[in-house]
């Protein structure tokens, strides 16, 4: 294992120290591993918190700031944070209008946030609602799985719902907006390489040089199938087709098209992939209203990408365009 680390056990704590040093506009609670926007709680605004395992940076800590999240709880690498962190963050961002928990659909995340919502209600009296993202079409949504994973749509959701909360919507309306975004979004990802969890010291799975995994999640878990590496044009089709098959994106308002890097793939290749994806969407009569290209929800140093489409409308595009000031996304402010 070759990594820019000191001790594998200290990776998360030391990275949070760096975030704190690099972003004086944020406030980091190192004991509870929570990143807050510096002016939290914002009086009268619904508080938005998210969290999850570390290793997906910039998500979620990099999305804390005006126009997006109020706080993010960092777990160990690829491990959900614990309820104490979420309860503390809930207390810390409550400006009197309640708090929305944004949870990606993974068994551990869902269980820990569930316990946190129970405890937060009992211990703090803050009104809490939860929204679970589950946009990954690679997983069959059936009784026989833990359900679809929450992946790329989480980034778009945190941005759009952050703007919605800034407009002064109440907790129920903010939660409804979050559910609408999740319902309108679908994703599919692929990996060229595995990744190495620092505490484990070796790659999570073996992937020969001439093979790739289609339908991966964001934790180095194997995907739906393993196939020989192919040109980008064919890979784009393997990602876009199942997404288009799952939901009709041909409406007049078009889509927000998000090509995400898994951590180890250069922007050069991501833009190349974006061109392939855009060409496929044009052929499928899907209009692109807005786009996002870059590594925003990553899987450590995994090479690969994912494609997320979010069916847009005037409201979603307006909220997408609203100002945002976070380490990971920043425009219009």
């Amino acid at each position, binding site marked *: 294992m070759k990594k820019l680390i000191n001790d594998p056990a200290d990776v998360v704590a030391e990275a949070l120290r760096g975030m704190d040093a690099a972003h004086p506009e944020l406030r980091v609670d190192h004991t509870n591993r929570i990143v807050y926007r510096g002016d939290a709680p914002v009086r009268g605004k619904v508080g938005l918190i998210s969290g999850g395992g570390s290793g997906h940076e910039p998500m979620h800590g990099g999305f804390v700031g005006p126009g997006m999240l109020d706080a993010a709880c960092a777990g160990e690498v690829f491990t959900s944070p614990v309820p104490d962190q979420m309860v503390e963050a809930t207390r810390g961002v409550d400006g009197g209008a309640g708090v929305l928990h944004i949870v990606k659909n993974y068994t*551990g995340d869902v*269980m820990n946030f569930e*316990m946190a919502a129970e405890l937060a209600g009992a211990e703090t009296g803050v009104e809490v609602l939860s929204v679970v993202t589950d946009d990954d079409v690679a997983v069959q949504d059936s009784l026989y*799985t833990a359900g679809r994973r929450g992946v790329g749509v989480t980034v778009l959701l945190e941005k759009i719902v952050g703007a919605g909360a800034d407009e002064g919507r109440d907790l129920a309306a903010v939660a409804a907006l979050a559910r609408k975004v999740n319902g309108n979004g679908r994703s599919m990802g692929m990996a060229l390489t595995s990744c190495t969890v620092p505490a484990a010291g070796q790659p999570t799975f073996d992937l020969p040089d001439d093979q790739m995994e289609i339908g991966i*999640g964001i934790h180095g878990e194997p995907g739906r199938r393993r196939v020989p590496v192919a040109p980008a044009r064919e890979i784009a089709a393997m990602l876009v087709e199942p997404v288009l098959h799952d939901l009709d994106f041909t409406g007049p308002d078009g889509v927000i098209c998000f090509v995400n890097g898994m951590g180890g793939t250069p922007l050069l290749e991501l833009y190349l992939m974006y061109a392939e994806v855009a060409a496929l969407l044009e052929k499928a009569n899907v209009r692109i209203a807005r786009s996002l290209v870059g590594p925003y929800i990553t899987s450590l140093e995994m090479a690969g990408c994912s494609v997320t489409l979010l069916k847009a409308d005037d409201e979603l595009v307006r909220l997408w365009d609203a100002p945002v000031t976070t380490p990971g996304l920043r425009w219009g402010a």
Partner: protein
Amino acid sequence: MSATLGRLEEWVRRFAVAVHSHRDELTRLDAAIGDADHGSNLDRGMTAVVAALDAEPQPGAAALFKKVGMTLVSTVGGASGPLYGTFFLRVATASGEVTELDGPAFAKALRAGLEGIVARGKAEAGDKTMFDALAPAVDALDAALADGDPLGESLRAATAAAEAGRDATIPLVARKGRASYLGERSVGHQDPGATSVTLLVAAAADALA
């Protein structure tokens, strides 16, 4: 024979030792069908539990198991934190603030813990989870105690049942947790949760014999 508070604490401590020495094995099993952190997460949690017990003696069974459960919930993360945490919190409630549990009371507490895991994780038999080792162990414990076997011997029967349940997860298709994303590709791998909970039952047999 009944289990004194000291022996109950010894159960927890022996489980911590077992988790630590099987840490890499648990992580390796998890790497095959999950996300390669079960050993390190549970080891971190049980290390914190031992530190908490060292720092502060517990007055009774309910306090002891509540401390274990809350510490695990606060330190483990992932799915195993809420699952093991809920297990011990339910064991605490079922035990009550006593300084000794007889066989039937201990078995009742274990069953309450099992029911807590079901409530939290919604697992059923054959889903390839910790339930598949723990449920037969609790059944075997009840059966042996009903036959009049002493607690230590009954717990050895429970351990054998847990081991059989654990081994029987190998050919199963996972239907819960991250392993379920693999579908048929989860076949041929032993479930890490079933493996760690077998260590928990075996630790009880060692400590309460």
